[in-house]
């Protein structure tokens, strides 16, 4: 029989059938310990190799050793480099941090997605279903970390899948697998949080009191992150927001504001048009 017809028939069937989603598993995530990062960028390359992502172009930035600049639709791991010089002691510090999708527990991208393309998969990871995404880019503006981006070629939103395909086969995500110093740790979120807590204690005991966890728990209006970080300086130094905003948390106020604004505008126009008869 004609293969095309079979495909159409399958697609039609799939449109109407709702297969049972896979049973939920314990949540997985990343704990990225920046104190162990040697800035080798193996995570960036392993991610691109496994996911077959193209290079973003060759642009020398002069921004320390960072030439990929930001997470994008085709860069799902990005290593930031921060050179710090302490004039008082004339000493250098070079912070390196492998950034990635935060896999938020309450992810704004999921909340704003109109098509349901963005979901939490059975591992609790935020995942874009490419065959559902319509490229509206709501998620792009919804994400306070600038993680997700739309690809110009196919028009859809792309970001870290937390190597969903590898996890389904019981494998560690490519970036964590390739990290030579175990700066990127992959595992069950509950275990990672405990590990991270102990690590901070250990560093504090060693005198490194500037170490702290970013996104380990709910803070402000934002949920905890399933992909969280150990940092040594203010979040802004690593280009992370101090207090990320979750658009959905502002819905009531924003609706109210819109309503008030429309009332006010109606009132103003009414005033303008009702101002007595013209001469």
């Amino acid at each position, binding site marked *: 029989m004609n293969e095309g017809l079979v495909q159409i028939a399958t697609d039609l069937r799939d449109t109407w059938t709702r297969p049972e989603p896979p049973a939920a598993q314990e949540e997985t995530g990343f704990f990225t310990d920046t104190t162990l990062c040697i800035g080798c960028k193996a995570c960036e390359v392993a991610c691109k190799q496994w996911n077959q992502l193209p290079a*973003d172009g060759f642009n020398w930035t*002069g921004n320390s050793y960072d030439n990929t600049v930001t997470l994008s639709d085709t860069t799902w791991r990005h290593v930031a480099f921060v050179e710090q010089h302490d004039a008082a002691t004339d000493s*250098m510090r070079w912070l390196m941090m492998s950034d990635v999708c935060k896999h938020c527990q309450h992810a704004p991208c999921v909340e704003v997605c109109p098509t349901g393309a963005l979901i939490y998969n059975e591992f609790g990871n935020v995942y874009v279903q490419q065959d559902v995404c319509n490229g509206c880019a709501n998620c792009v503006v919804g994400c306070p970390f600038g993680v997700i981006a739309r690809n110009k070629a196919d028009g859809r939103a792309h970001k870290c899948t937390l190597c969903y395909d590898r996890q389904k086969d019981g494998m560690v995500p490519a970036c964590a697998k390739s990290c030579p110093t175990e700066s990127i740790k992959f595992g069950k979120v509950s275990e990672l949080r405990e590990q991270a807590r102990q690590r901070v204690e250990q560093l504090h005991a060693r005198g490194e009191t500037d170490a702290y966890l970013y996104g380990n728990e709910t803070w402000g209006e934002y949920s905890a992150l399933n992909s969280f970080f150990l940092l040594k300086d203010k979040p802004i130094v690593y280009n992370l927001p101090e207090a990320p905003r979750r658009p959905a948390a502002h819905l009531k106020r924003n609706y109210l504001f819109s309503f008030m604004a429309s009332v006010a505008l109606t009132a103003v126009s009414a005033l303008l048009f009702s101002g007595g008869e013209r001469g």
Partner: protein
Amino acid sequence: MPGLGASFGRGAATSFQEDMQNADCVLIMGSNMAEAHPVGFRFPMMARERGAQLIHVDPHFSRTSAMCQQYVRIRTGSDIAFLGGLIHYILENDRWFHEYVMAYTNAATIITEQYRDAEDLGGIFAGFNPETRSYDGSREAWQYEGHEGSGGRTQAGHAEKAESFSERTGSLDSATPPTDHSLKNPRCVLNILRRHYARYTPQMVARICGCSKEEFVRVAETVCANSGRERTTCLVYAVGWTQHSVGVQIIRAATIVQLLLGNMGRPGGGIMAMRGHASIQGSTDVPTLYELLPGYIMQPSALRDHGGLADYLKQEEVKTGFMANLPKFLVSLLKAWYGEAATRENDFGYNWIPRIDGNYSHLACTVRMLEGKMRGMFLFGQNPAAGAPNGRANREALKKLKWLVVRDWFEIDTAAFWHKGPENPDPAAIGTEVFFIPAAASAEKDGTFTNTQRLLQWHDKAVDPPEDCRSDTWFVYELGKRLKKLYAHSTRERDQGLLNLTWDYEFDHAERLPDGSISRIHGETDVAKILMEINGYTVADRQQVADFNGLKDDGSTACGCWIYSGVYPEKGRNRARSRKRTPGVYTSPEWGFAWPLNRRMMYNRASADPKGRPWSERKKYLSWDEEEQRWTGPDVPDFEPKKPPSYRPNPDSRGMEAIAGDAPFLMKPDGRGWLFAPMGVKDGPLPTHYEPLESPLGNLLYPDQRNNPTIERYELPVNEYNPPNDEFPVIATNYRLTEHYLSGPMSRFNSWLNELQPGMFIEISPELASEKGIEHGGWMVAWNRRGAIEARAMVTRRIMPLKVHGRTVHQIGMPFHWGFAGETVGAIANDLTSISADPNVSMHEAKAFTVNVRAGRLKGHAEIEPLPPAPWPTREESPETAKSDQPEGQAI
């Protein structure tokens, strides 16, 4: 690496990277380990997390420095001053490990009366011949007291380098030279050491190196506090030490530090020589070096009395120590090469081996090429047009060839030199015929890598190489077959070696790929057969020998490379292919095969005290089991396994019988680690600070002796050296970035790596930048007498000016990864470096040279178009995989 060889006996990393996790302190100098060896750097990081101190001493603050608790900036090329300072600090403050040093080193040995130190002679040692610029008299002038000196051994001067075991380990009449254990004799080694380093005070170190006195003392204190009975310090270096005019001596200085502190042969100690290429260790073991036969056996030389096999052995065989076995190894090698044609009557074919009559090292050959004395060249995995010192000289040299064969994955810089490059070459004017032959990648062929820790790891062929790509063994094997055919009817004596060469490595059955299908490649070699020959076998029944202890000097055994013997001990058992983990045993003895005899840590007898007990519970490794009467531990003993600690030789004992039960350096003729090297190094028995060949500064210690007196210069129009004045006041060094590999043939054709580091840049301090009006991200030019390059300026505090000799000196640093072929192109750092040769290994000095800098671009410089990036996607969809399960980027 004669630096290690002269001190310990073998020129290889003494330990294994996994052992670095046991260190209490890791001193990294001359290595950018985190960037150049990121995978191995896992182990220093593990040590750090267990509480170890990591120290980086380097001209340039790199990703390695960022990981270390202590970073000390020094002037490039001042390493011996720093290490000499450490030796001084250890001796002056009595921080040396007395029991270890007195038992395991030649500290108490008495040196001949003829010896004069550099301190006495203004920077040179006794035995120097100014005419030949070499230490012709060293055999007598640096000798142990009572030793006869050269023993009639002929000298080859500059033409040959000290790489062979017999050169390095040296030879003595007796394994028990005169000693004075009370250390009262002023001529015993430790007292000579004290005098030699008396002026290397912390103040002097600070003045020469440009660091502060306090920084130096903090390093010295940390290293000393983390050495001794309970603690160990590991030392790491790489080509940041070797690529100097005094490279071998820098390494020698490190060996003295480690011997004095008692860190050799012990867990968490040792000296890790980080190798610069994949399998470069292998390429010196089964050598691509001109003066060596496999297993560090010296190539017969026309300059020595090497006439027949007996003459050769008379010259090279040592009386005491392990290398007394040399005849077994050499005869077995000849049997492996010449098979049945090698008989006792014809000296086993010894005379078919070509004699060397000069320096045929890489750079000496480049100079020959420049002079039009070479007709052709084969290049395997090498890129001299961008990767060799003085790039322009190398490109000029290539133009003088009649033919050039380049085997590589891509049309690399050297294959493209005739139509591309900074000089904008005119193809019509170049007569060189270039054959570019596509090579197979490592996953497309069987073979082994020998890594930095002497570990052989086999890799299986996964797929056939595409199109016309073939493995290097396929190519060499075919070449050999054709050459043999060409000379088949020759009756000339000199061709008999080629004709008698055993050359039979084809598969017995059709070669199968891992999926069971038959390979489409015809005539591929069965690499396992080569490894089996390397391991060695008995000639009569062609059974594999278990290890090199089974080799004989009567022609009954054959062995391609004795140090690897044991890698294939029986048919069907390729130990290099083994990947078993041993739970709880961090030496992982079933993972690959480490030469010699699968020893992971060399000289490990020293991990126990003279009586065979561990130095401490914390640092135990090997110990003598009194009941079993043998050495036990997690590793293969680097010692005779059943020789008790109490064993003492007779004065006339020979071979291994001459090595006492408490002499751990069994390759050395006296079984001791050599603080003072009476033999094995060609530029002095003790490391001495000399300025680099190019330096704007004088030698503070020896004003009349600025440079290493034995350095070999090549004064050519394309290879001018910069004068030591302010014409070129800026000191330059170069290094690697993690993102690229060497001069880029394997990385500049890969867009995933190119996007990470897409262009050449020069790192420069804010002070120098503002002095010269250079802007961050703008263009700048660096030039000297050999060339000029333009690159983006990376103004960063990771590079800083130094206060040296009381004046401010600027340094710049640059990666050396770019060239004119590839998806990204850029200036060649090596266009600024020079061709010169240190006297031991013909090493050039790429890590310290001088330049001047300015803002702006070069005029009239050829703008080179990079290759377009490879089309995307590079991979087809995976078969039998649903569309939704294909890698996401495939569709983009």
